[in-house]
């Protein structure tokens, strides 16, 4: 008996041909996968063309606290655009890059036919030369993106005025359609880090903020990106495994800022990140009113529409956050944004009080709204303290369905905007998606006082 037990033990340890259950796994392989399928023909490398139709409807805020000067936001808009990115090699180490979006649009407040119906956005057009391994020189319109946060990037200095006609409130998507800056850029990347230097010259004067009714058809809009001399120097170094902080130095006009960002891996599922920039600068209200007067949007001698802090002082911008990915493929980003130059609770109170007491005076309400339009154009949070949360779920419920939800909340008054997006990848060539957003908050709050209460969008994408 003991001999039988011993023999059985040996057999269990050595397990000769007793693994019949293992072979059952083969039954899970479908017949179609028994032989390798033919490989797809790869897309032309470096080239991408997407044809997109986006139809959106806007629901206005019926309880607007401060009357909005014209033009009013469009109540519906349909946009058909060809989004292109292409790259050509001219020779050894020399490439030309083009990126742009050609739009045909129709909306309730644009007559047809009209030159406004046709628009082209020249995002990038530059020559890149690689004289040696790890060294590049770029010349032309280049989109330089900096920063590590998802909702607000204080160190992304070339973001200002660069976003044209956004279709979404999602910051990560806003970056996909922003104009590059005409610049000369040099970069060296080596095994331990990288260094980048860029100079963007002033080629035109600052211009008034655009509305959806005065966008040029084929103008490259260099006034958005090259209305001042701008310089950027940034460097990153791998200090330790998985730890590569980045330092930045930026100069524009009479403003110099320094910045830094760093990320750190926390366990298997989380990434912590912080991004900071600081320097001597004006408040947002001060900057907006100065810019409005400089570009003729606000009469040069008009008094300020509200009380505000007009001193130049050292101010900080901060974005600190955490991303966490669950085993079910949901990635959450939770961030706190600090924009010291933005509106404080007292500034908001002054903004609403000025409208209530002096809104009847010609020019006051437009000047108040101009401050908000300026902040949006600069891609800055308008308030000092903002919370941001984003969730992205890949293969949600079924494969090829991606759901994204985000909310940006003004921590000073609890108002905010929430947005949910769904995209379903129908095939390798088609994606269908939709988006719904709404604002929340009291009538005398940041988001609760916006002219748009809600919006929906449906889109169809054909990958060419």
């Amino acid at each position, binding site marked *: 008996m003991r001999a039988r037990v011993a023999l059985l033990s040996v057999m269990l340890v050595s*397990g000769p041909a007793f693994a019949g259950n293992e072979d059952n796994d083969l039954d899970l392989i479908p017949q179609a996968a028994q032989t390798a399928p033919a490989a*797809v023909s790869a897309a032309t490398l470096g080239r991408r063309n997407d044809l997109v139709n986006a139809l959106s409807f806007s629901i206005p805020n019926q309880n607007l606290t401060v009357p909005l000067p014209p033009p009013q936001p469009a109540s519906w808009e349909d946009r058909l655009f060809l989004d292109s990115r292409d790259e050509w090699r001219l020779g050894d180490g020399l490439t030309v890059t083009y990126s742009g979006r050609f739009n045909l649009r129709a909306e309730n407040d644009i007559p047809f036919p009209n030159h406004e119906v046709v628009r082209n956005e020249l995002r990038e057009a530059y020559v890149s030369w690689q004289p040696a391994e790890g060294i590049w020189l770029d010349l032309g319109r280049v989109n330089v993106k900096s920063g590590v946060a998802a909702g607000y990037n204080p160190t992304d200095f070339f973001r200002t005025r660069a976003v044209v006609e956004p279709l979404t409130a999602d910051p990560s998507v806003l970056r996909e359609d922003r104009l590059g800056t005409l610049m000369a850029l040099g970069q060296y990347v080596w095994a331990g880090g990288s260094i980048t230097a860029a100079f963007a010259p002033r080629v035109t004067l600052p211009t008034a903020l655009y509305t959806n009714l005065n966008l040029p058809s084929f103008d490259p809009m260099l006034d958005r990106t090259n209305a001042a001399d701008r310089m950027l120097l940034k460097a990153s170094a791998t200090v330790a495994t998985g730890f590569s902080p980045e330092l930045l130095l930026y100069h524009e006009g009479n403003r110099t800022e320094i910045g830094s960002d760093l990320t750190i891996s926390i366990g298997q599922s989380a990434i912590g990140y912080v991004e900071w920039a600081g320097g001597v600068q004006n408040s947002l209200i001060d900057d907006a009113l100065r810019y409005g007067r400089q570009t003729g949007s606000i009469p040069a001698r008009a008094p300020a529409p509200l009380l505000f802090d007009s001193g130049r002082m050292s101010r900080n911008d901060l974005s600190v956050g955490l991303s966490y*990915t669950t085993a079910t493929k949901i990635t959450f980003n939770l961030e706190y944004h600090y924009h010291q130059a933005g509106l404080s609770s007292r500034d908001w109170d002054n903004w609403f009080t000025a409208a209530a007491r002096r809104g009847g005076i010609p020019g006051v309400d437009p000047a108040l709204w101009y401050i908000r339009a300026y902040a949006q154009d600069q891609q800055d949070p308008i308030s000092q303290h903002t919370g941001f949360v984003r969730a992205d779920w890949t293969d949600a419920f079924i*494969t090829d369905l991606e759901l994204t939800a985000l909310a940006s909340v003004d921590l000073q008054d609890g108002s905010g905007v929430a947005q949910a997006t769904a995209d379903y990848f129908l095939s390798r060539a088609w994606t269908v998606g939709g988006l719904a957003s709404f604002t929340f908050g009291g009538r005398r709050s940041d988001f609760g006082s916006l002219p748009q209460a809600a919006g929906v969008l449906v889109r169809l994408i054909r990958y060419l």
Partner: protein
Amino acid sequence: MFRAWFAAVLLLAGTLPAAAQTPREIIAAADRVRNPGQPFRTTNTLTEYVGGKQKDQDQIVVYSKEDPATRQFRNVVRYVEPPRDAGKIALLDGKSLWFYDPASKASVRISPQQRLIGQASIGDVLTVNFVVDYAGTLLGNETISDAERQKRDCWHLDLKAVSDTATYDRIEYWIEHGSFHPIKAKFYADSGRLMKILYYRGYQERLGTLRPSEAVIIDAVDSTLVTTISFGDLRFQDVPEAWFQRDYLPRLRAE
């Protein structure tokens, strides 16, 4: 009694390979079958089947290089297909994991858990040197069927993660006697849940030795999902150290 022990010894001897190998040596030899000893690139075509029917087909190019310090492979993965993902790049270097999207021109740092989302993770997992991230125990010897239902005499090993960069907590691994060809693997999460079953198949002479040209991955959580990976265009390629800097990702050009 003596005859019973003698039979057992004979049986045991018959199931063992001629030369004794430690689990570590077996796993290391199998790693060398899967991964060439110098930097290389391969174009992986991933075909996904749902309920037995082909649904998606993706293509990625994997540039791979062993880190002399950790002896683990570091990968730069460039997406080729489908068109919506073309040009995206994943940098998978130990704890330094970044994802670059040419549409936003932004590089986002991702967690080890997040790298498991999407097809780049498959290319990454396939180059892992198991001997670095796992400690192996020999469970015994088994004759199992390979993906082509041919019987293979294998070592059956149990691998436990010993590195915090290990993607899975535990792996069951079947390696063929003598040839050290990996035949099959089962990947388990920290919870003990079986996540994936992987078969290597289509051994061909490539870069100096017989290597698998395909893998079949069965999703153990949803067994209707099966992915085949064809390793095409395997060749040696210099991968400079600078490629593993996040600022290099926008500079990586298709060839």
